[in-house]
């Protein structure tokens, strides 16, 4: 197994992101699987930020505690990350900073000032460090040069940057070997935000309205770029989240495949409109990217504390779907499924992710995962273009909300006129207060939940068949738990893992059956109150004694889950 974990750490504005990008580009070119995450402060300049890039010849989907190669952009970075260094690790740092001498480490202090004065240019530290790092891994200069030329082809500073990388390259020595694996030619390195944008586009997205909010602003950026050359896509940044969701509802009513995205605070503003989507039966995909709350919370870190908030969001009883993808690949697939379910059942569908999924990167081959969920992307689902006499009321209005009617018309359709209504209404959308009609309409809407339940994929279980311990979790924890369980299985420990992806409607029968069979249960979640645990208890009566709950803004690492499972097993 070939695996290296790089950490690029420094102040915001020092170019750590560019360095991380460049290292990832080299690893990607050589056919490695990459999982990269970033930890940053809510400020544009200064503060301590770091990128962790895990490069492996096997599929990796999680953060690990231990790092092999540290690119320490300043003194603070040296101090903060030394404790995570593996035995025989490499540290690249500025010679003006002081690095504590430690056994079993390869230290490469580099005189940045000297190189910068040689090149008569400032702010080159990130490029110089990348050069040195790649030298320690035995990467040939020709390959590096080619990647730099390609990556920065349009930049006026190309020559200076290339020279900076070369001078850095010459400052270090080969320690390890990062061979070209010559594989994974079609893989791309994408974030969860990108995966959602790409999934939405594949599913035929034509309208996106979003007010910027960490951690899902990336979706708005990707789609805005996409809209330049895509005439069928409208992307708008409205005045607030309430406007965003109402614009999306208007567009969807008029026939667009529409989406909006936000984080917990923005979603709080949208909720009255989620209820409207349920009542008026308007398809809509909403992405909720969690970060630590309450209120502004810790805006650039991660957490999973909106589960109960999101599944319960909206006044009144109405049908709604909540899906929580567990990986960046699933962000793509489940976004496609969300569009399908939203349009078919004419209701709001939430894609619930968190900062860790939204802003981490993974190597994904979209062609390989395309088959995971497919529908006829180019065709409208349950929209009719012709209305027959039988479907009209005495005034010639379309009985869109009739109990035997599952299709809608969009404005502009001949004889398709009806009122799309947030008031309780009759078959044509006319406002009513009649008790009998009210009950009929509630039944019409709520019965969608059962039909959806029948369309959801089976529960996903990985690991030993005859497990002594069953782990339950959801969302972005999936990668770290899967890897820990895999390692333990390799060592002969009997553990398995159930990931809950569909939160609403909840597969209570399947979940209940699987968990009741388990010998011992343990719950892992990124929140204070064990929200998934509460949901499972509510739905199945099963309770959890063993819990690992984390709410410090950080992600679960493979090592900490591994350690915890060992404790539970003993």
């Amino acid at each position, binding site marked *: 197994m070939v695996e290296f974990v790089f950490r690029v750490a420094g102040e915001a504005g020092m170019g750590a992101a560019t360095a991380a990008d460049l290292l990832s580009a080299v690893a990607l070119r050589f056919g490695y699987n990459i999982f990269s995450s970033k930890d940053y402060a809510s400020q544009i300049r200064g503060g301590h930020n770091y990128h962790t890039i895990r490069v492996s010849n096997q599929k990796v989907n999680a953060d690990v505690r231990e790092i092999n190669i540290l690119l320490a952009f300043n003194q603070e970075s040296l101090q903060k990350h030394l404790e995570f260094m593996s035995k025989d690790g490499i540290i690249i740092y500025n010679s003006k900073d002081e690095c504590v001498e430690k056994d079993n480490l390869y230290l490469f202090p580099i005189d940045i000032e000297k190189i910068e004065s040689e090149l008569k240019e400032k702010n080159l530290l990130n490029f110089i460090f990348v050069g040195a790092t790649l030298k320690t891994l035995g990467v040939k200069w020709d390959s590096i040069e080619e990647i730099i030329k390609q990556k920065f082809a349009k930049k006026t500073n190309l020559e200076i940057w290339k020279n900076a990388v070369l001078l850095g390259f010459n400052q270090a020595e080969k320690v390890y070997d990062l061979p070209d694996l010559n594989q994974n030619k079609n893989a791309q390195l994408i974030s969860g935000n990108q995966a959602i944008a790409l999934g939405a586009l594949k599913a035929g997205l*034509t*309208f996106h*309205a979003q007010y910027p909010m960490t951690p899902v602003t990336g979706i708005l950026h990707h789609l805005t770029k996409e809209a330049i050359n895509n005439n069928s896509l*409208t992307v*708008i940044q*409205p*005045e*607030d989240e*309430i*406007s*965003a969701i*109402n*614009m*999306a*509802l*208007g*567009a*969807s*009513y*008029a*026939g*667009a495949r*529409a989406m909006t995205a936000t984080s917990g605070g923005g979603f709080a503003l949208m909720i*009255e*409109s989620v209820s*409207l989507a349920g009542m*008026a039966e308007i398809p809509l995909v909403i992405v909720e990217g969690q970060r630590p709350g309450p209120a502004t919370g810790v805006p650039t870190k991660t957490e999973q504390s909106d589960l109960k908030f999101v599944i319960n969001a909206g006044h009144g009883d109405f049908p709604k779907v909540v899906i929580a993808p567990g990986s960046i690949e699933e962000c793509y697939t489940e976004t496609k499924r969300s569009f399908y379910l939203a349009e078919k059942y004419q209701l709001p569908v939430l894609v619930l992710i968190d900062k860790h999924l939204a802003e981490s990167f993974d190597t994904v081959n979209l062609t390989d995962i395309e088959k995971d969920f497919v529908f006829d992307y180019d065709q409208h689902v349950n929209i009719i273009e012709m209305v027959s006499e039988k479907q009209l009321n*005495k*005034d*010639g*209005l379309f009985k869109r909300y009739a109990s035997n009617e599952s299709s809608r018309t*969009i*404005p*502009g*359709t*001949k*004889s*398709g*006129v*009806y*009122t*799309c*209504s*947030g*008031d309780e209404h009759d078959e044509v*959308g*006319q*406002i009513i207060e009649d008790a009998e009609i009210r009950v009929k309409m509630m039944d019409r809407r709520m019965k969608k939940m059962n039909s959806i339940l029948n369309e959801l994929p089976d529960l996903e279980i990985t690991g030993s068949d005859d497990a002594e311990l069953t782990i339950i979790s959801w969302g972005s924890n999936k990668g770290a738990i899967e890897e820990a369980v895999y390692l333990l299985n390799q060592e002969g420990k009997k553990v398995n893992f159930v990931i809950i992806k569909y939160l609403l409607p909840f597969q209570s029968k399947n979940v209940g059956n699987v968990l009741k069979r388990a010998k011992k249960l343990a719950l892992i979640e990124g929140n204070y109150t064990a929200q998934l645990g509460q949901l499972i208890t509510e739905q199945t009566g099963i309770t959890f004694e063993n819990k690992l709950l984390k709410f410090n803004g950080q992600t679960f690492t493979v090592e900490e889950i591994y350690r915890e499972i060992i404790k539970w097993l003993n």
Partner: protein
Amino acid sequence: MAELKDFNRTEIPNWCPGCGNYGIIAAVKKTLVELSLSNENTVLVSGVGCFAKLPYWTKVNGFVGLHGRSLPVAQGIKLANPKLNVIAFGGDGDGYGEGGNHFIHACRRNINITYVIHNNSVFGLTTGQYSPTAEKGRKSKTSLSGSTELPINPLALAIASGATFVARAYAGNIKETVEILKKAVEHKGFSFVDILQSCVAYQNHKNKDYYLERVYYLDENHDFHNKSIAFEKTMEHESSDKLACGIFYSKS
């Protein structure tokens, strides 16, 4: 050619007898007829309040959404299908209070829709509280000693926010209101019409006589292409008993 009856439904409005909304719904239907707009290619969008039931009594595509949110819905519809004729409605509480933010930004954005406000200076459906356009000193169930707040000036706000068509009408004068609405709907860009109306239940002092004494219509002497003059005109009522109606400002 479509006739008025083509826009009728079996259900008839249940507003209070004498409500200004009757004048507005009549003017809206007449506008649709005179502009030959079809019921399938037109969408009326409203929010919540007495006014908001207008689409329920008009045989046209309708979207009755949330309080204060007709503008974002209407803009979404127009962006998704620019061929549709989209008219959004608001009340003075709904549009200037709850949805005030959307109003400012819809003016700036200048999407080709029409926004009509039923302005009766009072919350009707919640039984008579002072609204954002109620005059200072107005007594109501929630302003027992008289409101201490200044009324907003929606026309000035619209012009300042970049609206490209700004007009005022009076619900009691249907013929004149139709002429103003026709120009608003035909305007390319965001057109805004504030329609003054009486509330017979909760705003008796601003009855038909009150308005008929004050309302007059701007004529060719008013240069509606001149933003400064238009802006000044929106403040005329603050220092006189006159209430100008008609087109205050139009960019084209």
